Structures are given as structure tokens and as C-alpha cells.
């Protein structure tokens, strides 16, 4: 096989991405309040614990049955087609918010949202995962058997699993640096 082409390097999304990457209903992966819809929200924080008001978070996930979405239209939402992709900007308090439904997974696997964080001051993207918290012994076993989670200590692992809210929603913070630093990923 011919020699591989060198990849194009990433650069920061910069301070002024909002008008360039915004699109209608970008954080509505599913239609709000539709059956199974819930809010996934959290705060993006820096090494001093301060909220980051100029970050962009993207999520991409399987549908509830574990299937990989192949429908187009994430940028022109029709409010019923599931495209699996969403984008959110943090507000001045560093908060992001998505309307999602919970991804499924193959039997015995732990479902998660694939996530990327971009921000001013972040020279390149950061990949991570947001796992669903376990509600049943089977789900707990799947989390325990996950190749990534089982390779981490409990504190690191906690940075990758969302927290169930009393209203049924999911809460998940991203800490870019310092205490409770989110585990970010590089792929083989």
C-alpha cells in the first residue's frame, strides 16, 4: 500500500465560532418532550474550576436500539428523524444543554454518547465519552465490563459516567484540567 498521507493538523475553534457553526435546533438531537426525550446538560470548566463560556460541545450516539444512525438532516431538523448528532455552545455560566434520548448498545455493552469538546484556548479538539449511569444490575455489569472504564481508577471513571437527575435527566460536567480532570481519548 502507498505511503499514508499526513493528516491535516487541528487548530483551536477560536473565540468567534458562534456565528459560523450555529444552526437551528442544533442541540435538539430529539424533539423536546417527545417520548423518551430528556435533557443532557452540564458545565465545562477550566483548570481553576471557572466555567468556560466559549466552548462548543458535540455529541454523537446510537439510537435507543443501539443502531448507528444513517439518516441525513442533522443540520435541517424535521423534528422526527433521528440523526444522532447534536451541537451546543456553553453560555456565560459555562453550561451546555442537549435534548437527547438514551442510546442503546449491543447486549452486554455499555451505551454512551461520543463527545467532543472545542473551546477558545484549546489548541485542538478533545474526544471523550459520556456513559449512561447504570439503573439495573445488567447495566452495572456492562459498565464494569467496558474496556475503557475497567482500565481506569474510580475517580477517573467517574469523569466519564453521567449522573441521573431527580427529573430523569442526565448531568455531566467536563473538566478540561485539574481536579477531576475529564478522561480524554486518543484512538488506536
Amino acid at each position, binding site marked *: 500500500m502507498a505511503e499514508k498521507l499526513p493528516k491535516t*493538523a487541528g*487548530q483551536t475553534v477560536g473565540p468567534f465560532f458562534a456565528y459560523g457553526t450555529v444552526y437551528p435546533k442544533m442541540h435538539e438531537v430529539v424533539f423536546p418532550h417527545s417520548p423518551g426525550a430528556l435533557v443532557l446538560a452540564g458545565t465545562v470548566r477550566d483548570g481553576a474550576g471557572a466555567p468556560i463560556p466559549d466552548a462548543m460541545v458535540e455529541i454523537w450516539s446510537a439510537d435507543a436500539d443501539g443502531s448507528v*444512525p444513517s439518516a441525513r438532516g442533522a443540520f*435541517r431538523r424535521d423534528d422526527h428523524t433521528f440523526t444522532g448528532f447534536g451541537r451546543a455552545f456553553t453560555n456565560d*455560566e459555562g453550561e451546555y444543554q442537549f435534548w437527547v434520548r438514551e442510546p442503546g448498545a449491543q447486549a452486554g455493552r455499555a451505551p454512551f454518547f461520543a463527545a467532543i469538546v*472545542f473551546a477558545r484556548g484549546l*489548541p485542538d479538539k478533545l474526544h471523550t465519552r459520556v456513559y449512561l449511569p447504570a439503573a439495573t444490575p445488567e447495566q452495572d455489569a456492562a459498565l464494569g465490563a467496558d474496556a475503557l472504564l475497567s482500565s481506569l481508577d474510580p475517580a477517573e471513571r467517574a469523569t466519564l459516567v453521567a449522573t441521573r437527575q431527580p427529573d430523569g435527566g442526565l448531568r455531566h460536567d467536563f473538566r478540561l484540567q*485539574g481536579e477531576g480532570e475529564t478522561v480524554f481519548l486518543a484512538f488506536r
Partner: protein
Amino acid sequence: MSDTSPAATAAPESLLAAPDQATQSQITQEIADLHAEYARREAAGEQVPTTIHDFPPYRSSILRAPTKNPKLVDPETIELYSPAFGQRDVAVIESDLTLQHSGEPLGERITVRGRLLDSWGRPIANQLIEVWQANSAGRYIHQRDQHPAPLDPNFTGAGRVITDDAGEYLFTTIKPGPYPWKNHINAWRPAHIHFSVFGRAFTQRIVTQMYFPGDPLFPLDPIYNSIPRQADRDRLVSAYDHDLTVPEFSMGYRWDIVVDGPDATWSEEEGEH
């Protein structure tokens, strides 16, 4: 706690100025030292990333760069696929940034054309490219941009395109100007266009910046230089292409994008809607 900290209550634009306001010569020296260090580490056999997250000459990275190395993992199924895009997502006119208002924007009209490829040189069709940029005077339309250069009522500076079957994209726009920022004293960004690109897999997602050939600001800019290898920096610079220049109309620049990483060799579903 964070509710009462100065950082939490300050207006966001006040966060844009680095507190220490170093001189350009200090910043240039920091860049040179870091490049030398990464060259040494690479020569010693270390795998040096294409872009360095912890790059202190870019002052706002100091509190935002992770301190731990990323965890190396095998991608799971979902990560081997990308969101699917098509013409349904983007109107054709969105690739012409000079047609979004009633009049012609000021500045040098250009076209930027290139191919989206994987690391084996295979074209990536039907993927989304988003661009945004300053106007010809170096001003972003973003409300937090305080640069006292004029806004252009005929230029917003944002566009989108879906790559065609040959993986090609084409934007018509105007050449952006360099713009000042507050990273250090007399800090100016080289003229650039921001690119946001989806590959075949979510792992291949890339946000980057395309530059213009021969910019004298290259050695001075901490963001451009957060890429330690010269060859990698060079690949972010477009090439002037006279064959893309349209007589009496626009100057042409060519810039190819290569995404890397694991990908699924899935075939696109046929039949665009």
C-alpha cells in the same frame, strides 16, 4: 464558589486579554524554545502530537489544556461512523459568502477549492465542511469582537458546503484580513479561514484554520505555532493556483484536507434525497 469568583462574574470579553501582556519577542522566544524541545523529544523517539494542547505562548491554553495524556482506546462502533450529511442539510448558495446580502462585500474576491481525503488518498464524498472568517478589514461579525475595524454590511463570513462525489469542495468568499488579539502586546493573527470538517468517522472530526501563502505573521503567531512540526504547519497554508483564478473575477486558492484515524469502510446509501 465559582459564582463569586471574578472569572465567573466577569464579562466574557474581558477573558480574552491575557493578564501578563508579554512582548512579541518574549512570545517568539517561547515558541522557538517549545519547538526545539518537541524536536528533541521526537528525535528521542517520543510520539509528538500534531497539535500541542499545552502551549503556553497561546496564553488562554494555560488553564484549558488537559494535564494528562489522552487515554489510548480502541474506538467503539459508534465512533467508527460519522453523522450522515447531504444536500438536504445545506443549501447550494451557502458556499458563496459573497451572495448573502444585497450588495457585494468589500475586499479581494477569492475562491477556495480542495479535496477532502482520507489518509489513503480516497476522496470523502457527502461530508460537511463549515467555514467562518473575518471580513477584509480583519473584523469578525461576532459581537465579542472589539477590534475597531469596520464591519461590512454585505459580509457575514460564514458558509457551508457538502463535498461532491470526488470529495471536492468550493467556496467563494473574500480574502480575510489579519486581526489583532490580546494574547500579548501587538499580537496579530495571520489571515485565516476557520474550517470545521466531518470525516468518515467521528474520530476523524477536525476543526482547523487555513492560511494564505507567504504571510509575514507566521513566525509570530502562537496559534499557528501550536503545531510543532514545520511540515504540518505548512500543510495548513493554501496554495495560490492561477488555474483556479477566474479572469476579471476572483483569485484562486487550493487547499486539501486529510483526515486520519480509524474508520469504517461503510458504503454510502444510494439515492440522495
